[in-house]
């Protein structure tokens, strides 16, 4: 493999088919990825193939360490970087459906975006310190006035606090805010605790 190699190490692995009893690295990789089943005696019985399989396995096992080392070697994202990225995003990207708002003014057409109502739901977390709202969905035809709507919310709660009162408080906040700001016919607020953070802030 290398010229002028005077180290005492054994010869490097030979990985060409003529040295692998007719098998190829491609085949051996497939065999390894299939969990070495069904067993192939012509591979299992070949010392050269077994050495190559071991080397392939070691290499595959090393990739998580490579990712970890590479990531650790990168600097953390500083504020300037975060602002640069955020400066490039379009804020109206997640407006969602348009929810009509009834009005008595003739020919007027009022509406609020689903995204804005999600913002209202998220803001309810401010009344429940330590609780973080994740994804929010409206199950129902929000574009049709009066249609029943179920609000589905994922939340993260801090470790060490009883969950039911936190969730109950949030449910009340969400229902109250939606009743105050929208005409949605909210029939249920379903809250799923998805995450318990190890240490509350």
């Amino acid at each position, binding site marked *: *493999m290398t010229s002028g*190699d005077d180290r005492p*190490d054994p010869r*490097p*692995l030979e*990985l060409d088919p003529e040295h692998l009893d007719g098998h*190829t*690295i*491609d085949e051996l*990789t497939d065999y390894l990825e299939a969990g070495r089943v069904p067993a192939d005696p012509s591979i299992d019985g070949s010392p050269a193939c077994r050495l*190559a399989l071991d*080397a*392939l396995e070691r*290499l595959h096992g*090393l*990739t998580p*360490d*490579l*990712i970890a*080392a*590479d*990531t*650790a070697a*990168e600097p*953390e*994202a500083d504020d300037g*970087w*975060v*602002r640069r*990225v*955020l*400066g*490039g*995003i379009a*804020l109206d*990207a*997640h*407006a969602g459906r348009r929810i009509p708002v009834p009005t008595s003014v003739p020919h007027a057409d009022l509406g609020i975006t689903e*995204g804005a109502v*999600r*913002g209202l739901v*998220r803001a309810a977390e*401010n009344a429940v310190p*330590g*609780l*973080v*709202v*994740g*994804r*929010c969905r409206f199950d129902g035809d929000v574009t049709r006035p009066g249609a029943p709507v179920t609000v589905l919310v*994922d*939340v*993260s709660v801090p470790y060490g606090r009883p969950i039911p009162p936190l969730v109950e408080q949030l449910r009340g906040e969400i229902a109250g805010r939606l009743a105050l700001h929208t005409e949605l016919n909210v029939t249920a607020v379903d809250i799923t605790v*998805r*995450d318990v*953070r*190890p*240490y*509350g*802030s």
Partner: protein
Amino acid sequence: MGADDLHASLDQADLDQADLDQADDHIVAGRAADGDVAAFAVLVRRYTPMMRAYTRRILNSSTDVDDIVQEAFVTAWQRLPELADPGKVKSWLMRVASRKAVDRIRASRPQVSVDHIEHPAPEHASPPRVTETRARVDALSDALQRLADPERECWVLRELGGYSYHEIAEEMDVSVSTVRGLLARARKHIIVRMEEWR
């Protein structure tokens, strides 16, 4: 978007920034998908080092890494609502970055030629060994840097990005058998070079 709006939205988020920072990917990405800029900022902070590292491995160069990672995040912001499981945002972000990186490669090198592959010379001496694992990671790193570009790209997409052979073929616009060939050669070269290190 005005800079003031951006500052306002970030400042408002400072109230519970620590809580949001500690929340898991499902919560943070789900919230970002709903249009919350502060949550998206948490993702940017959380995954920029990984995105940079991964992009650097694909390109084998530092040039363009920041541009590609920024583009990837901008695209991710737009497409987050399509992500069915927000808990998988990490691997999904890697996919978005892969696509940007491969696009960049294809723009500068329209065709993958398997027959005339050049293997670059190593650019630097091997770093000192710290531990056995560290030494093996360094050996792998060194071997990757010495692979021909298409071999390295395939290997990184497969092993770090978790792509299937079909997905790599599609991404790189080559046949599956070409991908298999490139991957086999990449593995062979890496293993032989890592053996030399031992």
